[in-house]
């Protein structure tokens, strides 16, 4: 279970405001990415994320570029999970691949307010907002994507898988 306070945004939060292209020349440098995450949309984000680590948003979160630096920037900044009405598909895959949990939860942006405390049960596909006595169901991830998340992302997942195959072969 992930428990935390919410930073809330609207619809169509695009990759170019999550991490502007002017910082991509730094590759995937965690310091640069966490420093500049969301700065064009919300200059206060850097402060907010110190005490709140759940992002709640409207539809089409992560719209735009295939830059993996977008979910990386949020992860390095301290975001623990993103809940949205819907996600843009490349962002969705990238987030799982770099080990940043996220879940589509219909209605979440209507019920949850900025600063609310939430409890997120990823494997069960549900969230709770205790102060409002509300509970919502989200879209559970397919088993193999959940496995990737649990491993911490696609790199550790594959490293383990390929290593296991190799030891099988030698054994």
């Amino acid at each position, binding site marked *: 279970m992930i428990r935390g306070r919410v930073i809330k945004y609207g619809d169509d939060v695009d990759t170019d*405001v999550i991490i502007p292209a002017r910082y991509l020349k730094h590759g995937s440098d965690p310091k640069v990415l966490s420093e500049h995450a969301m700065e064009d949309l919300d200059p206060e984000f850097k402060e907010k994320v110190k005490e709140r680590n759940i992002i709640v948003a409207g539809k089409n979160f992560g719209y735009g*570029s*295939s830059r993996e630096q977008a979910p990386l920037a949020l992860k390095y900044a301290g975001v623990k999970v993103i809940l949205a009405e819907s996600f843009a598909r490349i962002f969705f895959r990238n987030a799982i691949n770099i080990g940043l949990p996220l879940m589509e939860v219909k209605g979440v942006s209507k019920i949850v307010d900025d600063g609310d405390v939430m409890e997120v049960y990823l494997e069960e596909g549900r969230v709770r907002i205790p102060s409002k006595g509300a509970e919502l169901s989200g879209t559970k991830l397919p088993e193999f994507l959940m496995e990737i998340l649990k491993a911490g992302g*696609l*790199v550790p997942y594959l490293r383990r898988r390929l290593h296991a195959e190799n030891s099988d072969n030698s054994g």
Partner: protein
Amino acid sequence: MSTAVEKILSRASGKEVTAGEIVEAEIDVFMIHDPMGALVEDALNEIGAEVIYPEKVVAIQDHFIPAKDIESAILSMRLRQFHRRYNFGAYYEVGKGGICHVILPEEGHVVPGDVVVGTDSHTPTSGALGAFAVGIGATEMAAAMALGKLWFKVPPTVLIRGEGRFKEYIHAKDLILKVISTIGTDGANYKVLEFDGPAIRQLEMDERFVLTNMSVEAGAKTGFISPDDVTMNYLSNRARRPPRPAYSDKGSFEEELQFDVSSLEPLVALPHSPANVKPASEIDEEIDQAFIGSCTGGRLNDLKAAVKILRGRKISERVRLIVIPGSRKGYREALKMGLIDSLLESGAAIGPPSCGPCLGAHLGVLGPGEVAISSSNRNFRGRMGHPDSKVYLASPSTVAASALVGRITDPREVVS
């Protein structure tokens, strides 16, 4: 009854598949470029795997080139070293290629029926050749290169049927802006947008690429146009492998939408969304910069359209017009045809084939409060520079007309 994309994914995964299924498909083309190459190689090293089909990899220097500073020089070096380590099937050095989405089709790397992945969201461009082409992240690319295949959820297909005929000064850009504003920025999320109908069939390839490229601006997994004579003629002296064309069966679409292009006006997407669309004639805005370039506005056709408006005339004194051909080939053609000289005469600055200012990296970044009109594909906040700058998207004809007048202008107003 299957869609073309279902047929392609069935072939690539070795079993009959339908929309909604999750499959592992063999990849025919892996495209990487300078901003992501280093991330891909790092992930590959961390996984502890090798690129199993280096001959299927196409590596292209296009984003931050020629290097604008030390960091971007390092990214370019990393891509170059990655290529040298594996001897990829193709590598395009600065000056010898151009924008990845212009190069992949132009150099014959993609043929109908291919499954193409690229570390860039506009990879669906190649779908105009009848391929299944999708953008992915760097880590996923590393995994795909290590395994030779990648998982996909088989998408349903929405048919965009173009009726009627394009009038003079109306482009594929006007149609796709109309489509995006009609269905919204997530209207095609997880789906394929397939384009067909008499209006689509009359378009040259240079225009068709704009439709599939910007499908992603409506959230689509990819855009697709089944091959016809125009496609086959285009491929005849380029294709590096034999085509495996796939066609959608009648009735296989999740939905069909009709657009009559005869009634299209020159359209403009206002800041900060490609779905925020109005006719050019209804917009009252002075501009500081006009950009003709990118993977939706830097092909030969686009330069021709610009010259058709600008030939023998000078651009407005308040405007910088930046023109960046999408590829070396297109640049040389344009030179031979006198297009570049004509643009220089009109007052344009010509840049080397690259992504240029489209993503705000260099060669024309906007300052605070500046306004640009651009033939590129995205106008998100801060996309082309300062977060308080504004980008309007339009066809090359509309961009050229606006450069001439100094404010956003319907191209039909400046031709007699």
